[in-house]
């Protein structure tokens, strides 16, 4: 089972696909769930406090806006833990939407720097492309070694 980073990081469809093939998706939903379940932190709706953008300094310098660093404090550790990644480009908002373009650029850059299997593909616009899209993701996920990274 591999830990697979997905982009867009909040894509339910990608997350579901990764799980169906027996791997662990690294997705924003899990991170937010962790945040909002943290006892003692009261900063709704996301429970992101001023400390989080400071943690984001690990991934982006202080002159980078607080919103980027706050997001990176969630995304950065997922990138570090990833053993594979699927990046879907040019997707529609309903497929998964990451709000900040600067964060998106940095996220894609940092994951591409990792020496791990990465599948990059364009979001499908036709049914035929859709079939091919799912097929390529399935093949990629099947190609990931099971259990290798758990050790």
């Amino acid at each position, binding site marked *: 089972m591999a830990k697979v980073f997905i982009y867009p990081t909040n894509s339910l469809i990608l997350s579901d696909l990764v799980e169906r093939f027996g791997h662990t998706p690294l997705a924003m939903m899990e991170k937010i769930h962790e945040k909002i379940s943290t006892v003692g932190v*009261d*900063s*709704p*709706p*996301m429970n*992101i*406090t*001023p*400390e*989080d*953008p*400071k943690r984001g300094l690990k991934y982006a310098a202080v*002159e*980078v*806006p*607080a*919103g*980027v*660093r*706050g*997001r990176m404090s969630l995304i950065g550790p997922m990138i570090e833990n990833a053993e594979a990644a699927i990046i879907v480009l040019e997707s529609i*908002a*309903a497929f998964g*939407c*990451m*709000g*900040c*373009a*600067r964060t998106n650029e940095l996220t894609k850059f940092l994951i591409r720097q990792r020496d791990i299997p990465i599948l990059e593909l364009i979001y499908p616009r036709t049914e035929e492309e859709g079939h091919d899209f799912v097929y390529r993701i399935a093949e990629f996920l099947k190609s990931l070694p099971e259990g290798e990274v758990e050790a």
Partner: protein
Amino acid sequence: MKDKVKIALVSCGSEFAGVQKELESAAESLNAKLVYPEMDISALDNIDKEFGLEVASPDLKLMMARAKAVVEGIANVDGVFVATCFRCAEAAIVRNEVRRYIFENSGLPVISYSFTERTAAATLLTRMEALTTIARRKHLLAREKQTGLTAGLDSGSTTTKAVIMRDNEIIGEGWVPTIKVIESAEKALQQALDQAGLKREDIQAIGTTGYGRFLIGDHFNAQLAQEEITVNSKGAVYLAGKQKGSATVIDIGGMDNKAISVQDGIPGMFTMGGICAGASGRFLEMTAKRLGVDITELGDLAVKGIDKNVEMNSYCIVFGIQSLVNSLAKGAAPEDVAAAACHSVVEQIFEQQLQEIEVKEPLILVGGSSLIAGVPKALESLLKVKVLVPPHSQLIGAVGAALLVSGYIDQE
């Protein structure tokens, strides 16, 4: 308790920047509530083309779509707070245009702010208080004449001002440096009472404003403790005799500045701040001290000088003072240095604040710095418009407070 004022939060993800709690907290303390304007997700599909601003960030498209929902009345709100991250150029463009769009297409008060993770509720309070006041107390701001016998107190960062007004006339004034907030307010009020020949118990109502408004408001049992944006706007147009129609008010204070676009005495768009005290009266005070003249003499000195003879940039007060010291060391004339200091302060206001509001004449300059003759001169030269400095311009907050609080006498 009155109904909560509903403020639409139009931001590009303040939830991710660690400031959401501070935003909510500032709103809550004013009995207001932040709401996300509802809209259909399909509104995002073409919003950049509809709005005419194509941007890469989906959250900025969301801001435009939410602004449209507010303008079209799909979202029922009383005011709008537009916020984006500090240092993001793309967001700064959208923030300004969204704010302008809402202001021009709805009757709603709107303010904008760029935040960092260090933004605290206290920083936001004055801005949000102005927003809720405009939404909640429009009837109060419509008051054009002072009635009865009232006192206004303005507890500023540098000086505390007091006025006594009776039947639409100023009959007493007080002006002291702010040291201990309450003691300074007591002294200023006493000065004003002495000049008017009155006792404290003669006063029918007291209004307070400025940084220390809540503290002195409690101390004097004031009927009104109100932020400076609305009070100073009102005071400015009242003293300038420009209560009807549009006007622009620039208030150069001791610690920060306000640029306010006013319509019929009610603030519309406004900005507050300045990156550093280099853009405020504090820099002029330090300049006067370094030149060995009293602050009251700096203006006359500046009028005699030529600002272009001295290179000075007070974007940061520390660097500004360095330029000042360097220019004097090179043998610059004190009058040129004084003129350059006035020009630099005005230039900071122009670069940092006036870009965000539309300057409509008359341009009314108020606050203590307006009395330094070099300042209005520099502003006129930079903006190429006539600058109006009304009588008692340094007492603007106190006059505004005395005027507005007279509305409470009628209510009683």
